[in-house]
């Protein structure tokens, strides 16, 4: 190996490498990733999804139902505006009103897994203080019939409506806006008993949803 010998004539005292191009590149990449990043919001439960060979990516504008191993159901819908409007609608239906702060907090949250009656108190808490509540919450109440007990059905129903209204408003603002139909997805833990998933599919069917995506993690064939 030839040794790198510093030219005697070089006057500076430090041994430095000119890092400017490297830094330029790094900042370019950082800016790129910062601008393209869509943040993954923290979810109230960790769900270990089953593996599949499918390589389809979860589409945007999705209503996602998460089911954990205990069969607790969590609801989430894409889009800040749609989400807060859905909350207002569901609250109105059940006669629960929320303060502006609670609504703003809800907009920042990814998924909801509480009966509507308990949601207000939950939203008043700091995100860190919600953790212990997530552990003991029962999830969104579900029921086989379209009754008041079946809160998930109302979340789905109002979410559908608000997503449609949102799209219509967008089109009214800008005629070139590409409509994105609302998609549905179920994200369940691999160890969940299938009957819990089936219950949610049954609710989907009652709402005339026959096509949906199952969230999986990818594996090789």
């Amino acid at each position, binding site marked *: 190996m030839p040794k*790198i010998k*510093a030219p*005697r004539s*070089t*006057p*500076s*005292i*430090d*041994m*430095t*490498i*000119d*890092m*400017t191009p490297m*830094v330029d590149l*790094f*900042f370019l*990449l*950082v800016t790129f*990733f*910062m601008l*393209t*990043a*869509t*943040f*993954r919001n923290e979810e109230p439960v960790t769900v270990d*999804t*089953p*593996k*599949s*060979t*499918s*390589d*389809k*990516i*979860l*589409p945007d504008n999705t209503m996602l139902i998460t089911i954990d191993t205990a069969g607790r159901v969590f609801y989430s819908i894409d889009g800040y505006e749609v989400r807060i409007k859905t909350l207002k609608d569901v609250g109105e239906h059940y006669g629960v009103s929320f303060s502006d702060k609670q609504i703003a907090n809800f907009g920042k949250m990814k998924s909801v897994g509480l009966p509507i009656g308990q949601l207000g108190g939950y939203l008043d808490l700091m995100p860190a203080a919600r953790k212990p509540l997530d552990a003991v919450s029962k999830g969104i109440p579900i029921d086989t019939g379209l009754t008041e007990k079946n809160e998930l059905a109302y979340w789905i129903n109002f979410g559908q409506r608000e997503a449609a209204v949102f799209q219509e408003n967008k089109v009214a603002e800008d005629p070139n806006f590409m409509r994105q139909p609302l998609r549905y*997805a179920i*994200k*369940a*833990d*691999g*160890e*969940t*008993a*299938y*009957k819990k998933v*089936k219950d949610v599919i049954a609710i*989907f*069917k009652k709402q005339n949803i*026959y*096509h*949906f*995506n*199952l*969230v*999986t*993690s*990818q594996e090789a*064939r």
Partner: protein
Amino acid sequence: MAELDTGGGGGHGKHQKKRAKKSSTRVDMTPMVDLACLLLTFFMLTTQFSKPKTMEMSVPKDVKDTAKQTKIDDDLAITILLDKNDKNKVYYYTGKFVLESTQLIETDLSDKGLRKFLATRNKAVIEKLNELRKKVARKEMTPEQYDDAQVKVQIAQKDAPFVILKTTGESTYNMVVDAIDELRIADIGKYALVDVSNAEKIVLFRKMGKPIPPEVLNDGVAPAPPAN
């Protein structure tokens, strides 16, 4: 470009003392680079994994009227029964279900089990699709065109099997997804996800050596199993 220099600590430079002032114009960029590097890694990781993969599913509408239900040719029907077990065992039968005579065949969700069986039954479709995949690999076809063509091939093949995936409530979601995945790998285009009937449960549990719950036995669908 990279400027190399013997360090000041070594004190090799002859003119060190004279020109020391020149070096002070340089800013040490190391912390900045560290930070940029850290941010870069962070953003790269968060963006990469934030989009999960999904599997598309369709479920049939509930049709009460039996006359309007989809009729399946008995020769083409393959029924796969899933129930909770540790060894990923699944059971299947072909054709029509007859309580007295239907024999369940035991297999598993490995590549040598169910996949092999489905591949032999769905050979025609797989061969056609393999041709199409080669075209995609040769860039003669876009993946989108392939998706459309795949559906067409699967529908057009009149003797392609129709798989009915029947699950008891106790099967884990893992198993169900794995089974659907096997169907996808075997290029089965026609499949449905339904519940196991009580008569099938009797045969399934007997095969698995599981006790048959009384409510299943007393359903009235089936006579009591013969004592053996």
